[in-house]
């Protein structure tokens, strides 16, 4: 049995472990179906039991003297942490987290894990790195290497197929977690990735976004009841924090979310509820200054590395808070190109650490194949006009290229005229800001109810793995919804009724061939051959043609698929 090659992201707030399976990195679900484990340790004095992860976090408030979190901040320091009557060094505490991750992963994978790569922040000094190695050893592990977190993140993206590679040796890693922000600039010199600059803010993260929403809720409650609840009981604050987090996640995908919380508290014998709608724009105003703080740090890092924005090649997003559309939008404006992530930003450091363990072991690494959108999908808007024809010609993307599917994203658009009769919705795919240079997928008419100019229309795209996009349009406040389904691959609107028939995939060969046809890296002639053969084969199957003919087409198609896979290096 071959050795498990794994990597561990030993984080301040959360930790995770990933391993290589047939050359591909996979994060291991450790507790309650989640790969993300809180970096918390608690020691129960009465029973002598040690808790790690979620259960330790759940004990934190009740047993603060027996529980410790954020131990990473103390790594490398000559200090002891008191857990009840037990005194432990930071590396001893960290070793418990590492051991928990490794034991759980070993149990899950059915094989003992002996060696690992562990990640540390780029700014960790020698003492902190040595303490991390010591923690690994105390956990009974051989630490094959300590690597920087931004380096690990960039390693995963080195192995993702079909991503645009910008020809520059400089990579920027923007890491916005729950409570901390780090930005690093790497220089790639062959196999070596050198950290040129690293800046950050240890008190800035997605939790601050939540707090802004909580402050907004408190203002609204005060407006309604006249009572200031900001110093109210902790339970109410905790509940508002959870509500804020839910709203934040919702606003990442939708332009508006409803917040409905029953019985938050009571005033003069009446229950107080929270029942309001928040728009993404309002939310972005609330957090704008926080995002700008990260921009200032990013500029500081560029200055430290003596580079300009234009020198930077790929921009890699790490940390859950980078899912915030304003973060991606701000970076896209700065770098003048779309910035998004195709790999789970919470796990890509651990995944990268496992890739590093594979490189050390000389393991052949496969391409990381992702179910991602091959092109951006969006609609035509009148933000720009074609100079020759005078027609509207602006491509407004709703789902960006390389976004993991299935995905659901919504955007807000506005009508132009008073009592506008409707909108000719034209759906395009491509990367150009001009629709003329992109491909039209389908168009349909969306009748509007009489309303003043600048009325809102929410446009939501839900894109699935089969290349079907379900479009929902909603004229906000007018009870006017329309749902349309588009087949992106066949470039046509699916009429209600024949959806099931259209969606039915004749067989796996056709499905596989259509997936390959969409790959940009496929040589043109091969794409044409595939398209032609797939159509012939499909036609023969549908129309019940002679078995020998179907057989012949199938053989030809299978051979061409094999050739295409070899050319793309994607054979599984």
């Amino acid at each position, binding site marked *: 049995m071959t050795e498990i090659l794994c990597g561990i992201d030993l984080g301040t707030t959360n930790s995770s472990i990933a391993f290589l399976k047939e050359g591909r990195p996979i994060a291991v679900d450790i507790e*309650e*179906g989640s790969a993300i484990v809180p970096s918390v340790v*608690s020691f129960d004095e009465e029973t002598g039991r040690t*808790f790690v992860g*979620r*259960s*330790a*976090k*759940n*004990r*934190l*408030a*009740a*047993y*603060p003297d027996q529980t410790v979190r954020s131990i990473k901040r103390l790594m490398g320091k000559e200090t002891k942490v008191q857990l009840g009557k037990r005194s432990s060094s930071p590396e001893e505490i960290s070793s418990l987290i590492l051991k928990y991750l490794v034991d759980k992963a070993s149990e899950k994978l059915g094989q003992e894990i002996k060696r690992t790569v562990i990640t540390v922040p780029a700014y960790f000094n020698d003492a902190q790195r040595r303490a991390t190695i010591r923690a690994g050893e105390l956990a009974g592990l051989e630490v094959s290497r300590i690597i920087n977190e931004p380096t690990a993140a960039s390693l995963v993206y080195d192995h993702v197929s079909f991503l645009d590679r910008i020809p520059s040796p400089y990579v920027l890693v923007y890491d916005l977690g729950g409570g901390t922000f780090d930005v690093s600039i790497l220089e790639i010199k062959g196999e070596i990735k050198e950290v040129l600059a690293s800046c950050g803010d240890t008190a800035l993260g997605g939790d601050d976004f939540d707090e802004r929403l909580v402050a907004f809720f408190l203002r609204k409650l005060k407006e309604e009841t006249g009572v200031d609840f900001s110093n109210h009981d*902790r*339970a109410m604050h*905790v*509940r508002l924090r*959870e509500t804020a987090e839910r709203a934040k996640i919702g606003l990442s995908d939708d332009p508006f979310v409803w917040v*409905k*919380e*029953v*019985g*938050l*508290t*009571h005033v003069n*014998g*009446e*229950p107080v509820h929270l029942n309001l709608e928040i728009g993404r724009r309002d939310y972005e105003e609330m957090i704008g200054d926080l995002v700008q703080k990260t921009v200032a740090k990013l500029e500081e890092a560029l200055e430290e590395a003596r580079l300009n924005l234009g020198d930077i090649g790929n921009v890699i997003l790490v940390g859950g808070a980078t899912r915030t559309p304003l973060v991606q939008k701000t970076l896209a404006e700065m770098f003048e190109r779309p910035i998004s992530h195709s790999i789970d930003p919470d796990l890509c450091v651990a995944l990268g650490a496992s890739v590093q363990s594979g490189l050390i072991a000389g393991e052949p690494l496969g391409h990381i194949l992702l179910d991602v959108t091959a092109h951006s999908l969006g609609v035509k808007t009148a933000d720009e006009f074609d100079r020759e024809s005078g027609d509207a010609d602006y491509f407004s993307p709703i789902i960006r290229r390389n976004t993991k599917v299935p995905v659901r994203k919504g955007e807000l658009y506005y009508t132009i005229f008073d009592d506008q009769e409707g909108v000719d919705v034209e759906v395009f795919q491509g990367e150009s800001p001009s629709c003329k240079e992109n491909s039209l997928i389908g168009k349909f008419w969306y009748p509007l109810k009489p309303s003043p100019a600048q009325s809102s229309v929410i446009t939501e795209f839900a894109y699935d793995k089969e290349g079907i996009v379900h479009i929902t349009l909603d004229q906000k406040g007018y009870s006017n919804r329309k749902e349309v389904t588009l087949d992106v691959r066949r470039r046509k609107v699916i009429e209600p009724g024949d959806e099931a028939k259209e969606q039915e*995939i*004749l*067989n*796996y*060969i056709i499905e*596989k061939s259509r997936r390959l046809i969409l790959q940009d890296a496929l040589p043109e002639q091969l794409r044409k051959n595939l398209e032609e053969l797939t159509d012939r084969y499909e036609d023969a*199957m549908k129309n019940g043609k002679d*078995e020998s003919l*179907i*057989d012949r087409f199938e*053989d030809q198609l*299978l051979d061409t698929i*094999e050739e295409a896979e070899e050319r793309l290096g994607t054979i*599984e």
Partner: protein
Amino acid sequence: MMWPKFVRFLRKTSTEERLPSHKDILEEINLVRKSLRKQAAFLDLFRKEVIERLEDERIEDLNPFIETAEAFFFYDRSLKEISDLSSNQHQGLEIVWQKMEALLSCVGIEIVRQRGVPFDPRLHEAMERLPEGDGNPVVTKILQPGFVHGERVIKPARVMIERESETKG
């Protein structure tokens, strides 16, 4: 989705027949290769379908049930905090709770809202410091209910705890 055709079978050879030519053997190998390729594709498809079926049961899909149960929990609590309910009103709420729990169990969810039970850090998240003293910690108040789906704790209940002897006293 079913594979549309049968995979071709190998031809039988008998000892009486003359040995096949190299060309025939190569052809045979080619057929086997194609059959295997088809089988591999078929298994791959099967694997995908199984994964998709598993993914279909995503925890996110249970959110509407959880949100409704939470809303009812908070409404129930605010009613009880504001006024002294009559026994019939209490009974009415209890009937709705029974129906709510039955509904949740239909989708495999169990709500964690019991007081007086021992503090279990897997199911409960303590919100305040436990007073010094003897006695096992028990849940005295549920601030937010928790939810369990099968073996998995979707979210722990947020609770207040006290020592058992104190609650008895």
